[in-house]
């Protein structure tokens, strides 16, 4: 029951999370920061604006991106197959990429291209993440991961790789080249406006929930460890975001492939010998 409520309210929770995040980052910079509910105030503003679209297909793909991500979170939280969830997440990303390509806009295309390049970095890590749990639990079943023991200490290198993935996926410095606002003015987001932009916004909220739920898996059934872990990751990601400057997309690919995939792979080989 709790899971179903959690899934249904995933976009709301993600919005709340973003509100807290903006406060936290502001405090780190000695600012007051916007009110906690600012993401929702933004939402109402966007809904009230006069809707404008480039064309229908472009709009549809953004909505599908959001819906698919929501479905991904549902499958993840309700305890499906971890590997399958990761591939379904790929479908959501592909919707976003096609959305980016489906309009004749230079920045939108640049964004979609970059979205694909970073996919080449984080997707292998996510798959290896699933494989690591397969080796420890004997299956990809999320049910057994949720009810099993905490594997954080057996998976420390992988945990570091997942921090890297989280920075990329949530668009945090130094790995935010895929939707860098100052460089490619938001990439795929650029051609959306009004209520339709809100769908991309909410998709981002759901992405938060997706990534943090993946971190939750490290703690297994250990509730306390899970809470501490999530809080720690939350602070860590924002600390890194605040303390670093963006690196170029080509460097992102190199760092990601060497450190992200490298650490994940070493961890898996290590599991085989321990």
């Amino acid at each position, binding site marked *: 029951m709790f899971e179903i409520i959690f899934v249904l309210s995933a976009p709301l929770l993600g919005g709340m999370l973003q509100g807290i995040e903006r406060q936290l980052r502001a405090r780190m910079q000695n600012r007051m920061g916007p009110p906690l509910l600012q993401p929702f105030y933004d939402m109402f503003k966007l809904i009230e604006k006069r809707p404008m679209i480039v064309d229908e297909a472009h709009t549809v793909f953004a909505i599908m991106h959001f819906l698919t991500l929501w*479905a991904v979170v549902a499958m993840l939280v309700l305890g499906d197959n971890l590997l399958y969830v990761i591939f379904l997440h790929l479908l959501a990303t592909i919707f976003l990429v096609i959305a980016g390509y489906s309009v004749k806009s230079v920045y939108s295309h640049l964004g979609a291209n970059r979205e694909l390049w970073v996919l080449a970095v984080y997707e292998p890590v996510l798959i290896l993440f699933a494989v690591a749990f397969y080796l420890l639990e004997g299956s990809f079943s999320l049910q057994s991961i949720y009810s099993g023991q905490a594997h954080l200490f057996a998976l420390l290198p992988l945990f570091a790789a997942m921090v890297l993935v989280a920075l990329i996926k949530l668009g945090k410095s130094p790995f935010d080249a895929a939707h860098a606002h100052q460089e490619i003015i938001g990439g795929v987001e650029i051609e959306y406006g009004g209520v339709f932009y809100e769908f991309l916004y909410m998709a981002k909220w759901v992405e938060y929930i997706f990534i943090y739920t993946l971190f939750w898996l490290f703690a297994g059934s250990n509730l306390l460890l899970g809470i501490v872990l999530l809080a720690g990751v939350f602070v860590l990601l924002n600390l890194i975001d605040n303390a670093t400057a963006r690196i170029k997309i080509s460097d992102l690919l190199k760092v990601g492939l060497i450190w992200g995939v490298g650490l994940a792979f070493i961890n898996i080989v290590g599991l085989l010998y321990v």
Partner: protein
Amino acid sequence: MAVLLNLIFFLPPVLAAAMLRLPPERRNYTAVAGVGILTLFAVMLFFLPFEVRFAFPEALHLLFWAADIAVIGFFAYAGLRHRSMPVLLLALAQMALYLGVAGSAPAEKTADIVLNETARYMFLIINGVGGAIIIYALHYIQSEAVQQRRKNGFIALLFFFVGVMNMIVAANSIELFFLLFELTTLCSYLLIKFRQDAQSVENAKRALWMNQLGGLAILAAMAASLTAYETIYFDTLLSRANGAAWLLPLAFLALAAFVKAALIPFNSWLLGAMVAPTPVSAILHSATMVKIAPFLILKISGGFDATLSFLVALVGSFVFMTASLFALSKDYFKEVLGYSTIGLLGLMIALAAIADPLAHKAALFLICFHAVAKGALFLQAGILEKHYGVKYISQIRGLADRNPLFVAMIALAFGALTLPPFGVFLGKFMAIELFSQQMQSHPLFSVVLLFSVLGSVVLTLLYFRLLSNFYAKSAQSAGEGTAVDKRYFFPAAGLLAVLLAGAVLSFGTLGITQVLLPLLLLGTAGALVLLFRAKHIDRTKTYHCGEKEQAVLANSYFDFESRYMKRAQVLALVLMAAIVAGGWYV
């Protein structure tokens, strides 16, 4: 039932003969009817509840022997005529080895033909997908600037090819397998040479000698099998092997499969085949020729020991990753498809090398659905060339404006190669689980897993990066705004429909939600794109930061091929040599 079985072997050659004689109109009707009957036979045989085994009469064996001599003789002649030393030398070597081996075959005879489950799947692919390609070729070939007689010959050759393929998947005798293997080499040689210009002849020669190498490996396997195990039958050889040791005959057969699959370093023959008319690429990549490779590995992997199984999987997965990377540096649409075929064949071989029922099932899934998807994609590549006059990805720009339905079909075919719940996705999904499983008993399999993961991600990147070109600006090509000819459209659309319907097959492996959810999402997206018309919402132009110059969109290219090809070839060759050398010493 034996009648039906014989018909599926012998109807295609009969149809081939008919193609040569009939006038174009009646030729087309006969071909379509023939394809229909063959597909029907394949479906009927698919539901056959028992295994069929039988031997051909002695007279037919004599005929096979004569055919072998004739084919090898023809290769020698081709080598002389086109002054190709490798072709000639390999033909002579084959002749010497064949005469030696065929003379010393034991009197003990078992079944020549065994129809098992794998063969039944292959029948469906060969006749269904091959048939769709033949129907497409009927119209396509008419636009080639050659005599009618040669056009008919082209169609006849395609039917003959299908017949040979039908028999090769059921062959139980290595000797018969060798003949059919050589016949597929012959067919591909003649098809690649079809346009008869210098480039075509050059590439056909290369395809010929490389595949002759495969033939030679089969003869070596036969010789090794005769000396050590006194049999030339697959089933007897496997029952005597039983996974106990690293068998030399199996190592040689694996080598033949590597050549046939055009795995790096033999990749150049399949990529060179692009010079031929598009239906040739379509049929080589999907229903015939290269599919012999994973099929052969499936057939013999029961006899692999753990090390051999690992090495073959390593070669396969290594090629999967490198070929996918090399595809990123290509601009010629068919070449991109070609590299992705080589890569996926590597993955199929890696899966087939694991002696496990689930791995066999996954490999079969990949073989079947890759055949359908690649067949459809090549037919679409043909439409691009014939209808739009476009060969290179960089020329495709803007096609989405002129024919959104056609672009959506290509997108769907790419989607079917990567996304849940379609067959190729399912194959990859199972591959990751199977390699993870193997890792636990054989830690080195972690390398196979890593290669496979990276390869499949790179392929996803490749397909969708390619897709971006359809939406980019500045298209300058012919065929503006006209509908694609129905005779091109229907075979391609038909294959695509099969691909989508194939999602049903994932029900056994995936749960109901796992199959229905992505279908629902994709279906909703498709329906909304087609139906959603926002009349009351204002339109806006795209944002260019105030720039007046309209930028032309382009892809980024990564030139992995020229930088790493040599190294990849050497590494793959060393691994293959290790497989054979290991068979020799162990």
